């Protein structure tokens, strides 16, 4: 088996094992896995309304996945997507309601604000890594909590003690009557176009620009890149900043598309952490991220149908997602298994 086939098989096998273990958990807990998976399936694809909402759910996952994948490709691990996304959400909502501008200016401005907020928060981690050798994993975890508490405090202040900001103006909204009508009044919005555009942007930066080449080179081998005259520190900061920009835009999808405001959160949204899974499944490539996001977005939205249709708690899907992450991360053992399998076949 060639390396390429194995690289493709590892995530697929991980997904299958995840679904099988999920089925076993359902059986052991006294639920019917067939009913469960049928409920999941109809929750995702049942009618045009479900499909619309599934795509809406996929949108922020694409951007969170891009953020993690971009950092990974440059040798960095951005666990801070969650915090960057929360601040992007807040920035987009604030620009959305505080200004009154024509749509052609207002919407791009709100998106830009979200990207800038996310980029700034990630820049901090990149700066700390480049200048003070602070490991980005720990720095971004700590920045997640700081972002959550700061965003909550700012929302409380902005809304005079309420739990959510004012509704954004129509001129900043990503909502689209056309898409809604097309999908039986679902909350599908134009954000998916922004997300797919960013997929192209990431591909372009990494594959078609000199800067992208440098970023990847630093990710492959810091010392070699340094020897070749590239500034490692500058590239680390830049990579984190771009990664945070994607994450911030993910927040804008929620602010300008789905919720039309920013509200106080008792805890994390989870989108940023699932973005790690999305990136891993997508092998950190832009196109792979689209597939990973589609899988996780579908599972997450379809799961909401499980308690009603099959009486199974929706958390079963979170268990499956966590298991898939385990198996993808443990890809080494799957590789070993596959290589043994293919050797046996050759021997026959």
């Amino acid at each position, binding site marked *: 088996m060639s390396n390429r086939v194995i690289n493709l098989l590892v995530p697929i096998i991980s997904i299958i094992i995840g679904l099988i273990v999920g089925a076993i*958990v359902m059986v052991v*807990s*006294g639920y019917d896995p067939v009913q469960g998976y049928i409920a999941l399936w109809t929750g995702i694809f049942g009618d045009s309304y479900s499909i619309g909402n599934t795509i809406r759910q996929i949108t922020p996952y694409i951007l969170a996945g891009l953020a993690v994948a971009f950092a990974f490709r440059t040798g960095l*691990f951005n*666990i801070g997507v969650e915090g960057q996304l929360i601040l992007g959400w807040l920035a987009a909502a604030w620009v959305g309601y505080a200004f009154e501008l024509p749509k052609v200016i207002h919407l791009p401005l709100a998106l830009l604000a979200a990207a800038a907020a996310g980029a700034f928060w990630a820049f901090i981690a990149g700066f*700390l890594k480049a200048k*003070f050798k*602070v*490991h980005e*994993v*720990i*720095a971004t*975890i*700590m*920045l997640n*909590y*700081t972002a959550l*508490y*700061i965003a*909550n*405090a700012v929302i409380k202040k902005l809304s005079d003690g309420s739990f959510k900001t004012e509704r954004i103006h129509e001129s900043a909204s990503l909502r689209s009557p056309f898409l809604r009508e097309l999908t039986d009044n679902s909350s599908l919005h134009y954000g998916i176009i922004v997300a797919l555009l960013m997929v192209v942007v990431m591909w372009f930066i990494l594959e078609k620009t000199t800067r992208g080449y440098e970023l990847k080179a630093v990710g492959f081998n810091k010392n070699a890149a340094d020897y070749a005259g590239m500034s490692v520190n500058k590239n680390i900061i830049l990579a984190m900043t771009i990664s945070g920009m994607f994450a911030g835009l993910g927040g804008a999808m929620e602010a300008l598309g789905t919720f039309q405001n920013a509200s106080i959160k*008792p*805890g994390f949204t989870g989108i940023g*952490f699932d973005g*790690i899974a999305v990136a*891993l499944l997508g092998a950190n490539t832009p196109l792979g991220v689209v597939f990973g996001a589609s899988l996780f977005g579908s599972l997450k939205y379809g799961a909401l149908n499980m308690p009603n249709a099959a009486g199974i*708690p929706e*958390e*079963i899907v*979170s*268990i499956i*997602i*966590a*298991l898939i*992450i*385990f198996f993808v*991360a*443990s*890809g*080494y*053992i799957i590789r070993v298994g596959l290589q043994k399998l293919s050797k046996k076949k050759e021997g026959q």
Partner: protein
Amino acid sequence: MSFLEMLYFIIPSAILYATPLIFTAIGGVFSERSGVVNIGLEGLMIVGAFVGIFVNLEFASSLGAATVWVAMLAAVVIGAIFSLFHAVASISFRADQTVSGVAINLLGLAATVFLVKMIYDKGQTDMIDQPIRRFGIPYLEDIPFFGRLLFHDVYSTSILAFAVAFGAWFIIYKTPFGLRLRAVGEHPMAADTMGINVNKMRYIAVMISGALGGLGGAVYAQTITHDFSHATIAGQGFMAIAAMIFGKWHPIGALGAALFFGLAQTLSIAGNQIPLIENVPAVYLQILPYVLTILALAGFIGKANAPKASGQPYIKGKR
């Protein structure tokens, strides 16, 4: 509130909030000293909190006063078993330790909320009847000032936490086991050459972190929240990681940092009742532990050095 009354309120409360952090942070010290990064402490605490509340609810009527101890013991055992996920993935299967830890956090939360819904048919358990209760230590509490401050509202779990901290210090720095543990975390190949089984040491260390993380969660749930839901453990595991780093991967350092973070938590929760800081927005105190950790890592508050091999799988024969 007079200044004295304020102290009598703040200090016991700070120790209360610090206790679960002490257990969990020291669990983290064991794991990282052996070279395995454990981002999954939050998930381990969640599992411990669930097990603690579950055992307490189910067995309180038959076990009476012993309930809390049985519940904590169960959390220790289940926490150690649950941490095997992380151990197998990151030690044997050479998974990225950070990714595996993230998965532990997601799995811990999802599995426990799933179980709560399955067992109780709702998203949140009832309140327990037998929480861990505070008490006054005879004679010691009569000491002027210090008695009221330290020995009047004591939880037995807090005493245990201090004992665990000093015990961990003794084990890590004064026993052959501790020497092997540190060797494995600093230079696994050298340790292997000396005949130490690197993977076995790492498995033991991760399981200790699971046991202590589970204990931390059970203590938190049984002293502070008294029930279990998805929001019972909201960041305490990460605060424990922060305490571990702030304490420079040293048990006594972690103890000190946990106490300090406990103080920050008390002030952010009850700050509006306390003169002097009532006008300080709570958000500053909420973010304090996290900001301080970043500053510590940046070297502004002394140098913090992680064990050298932390985060790398050990592969025999590779150099």
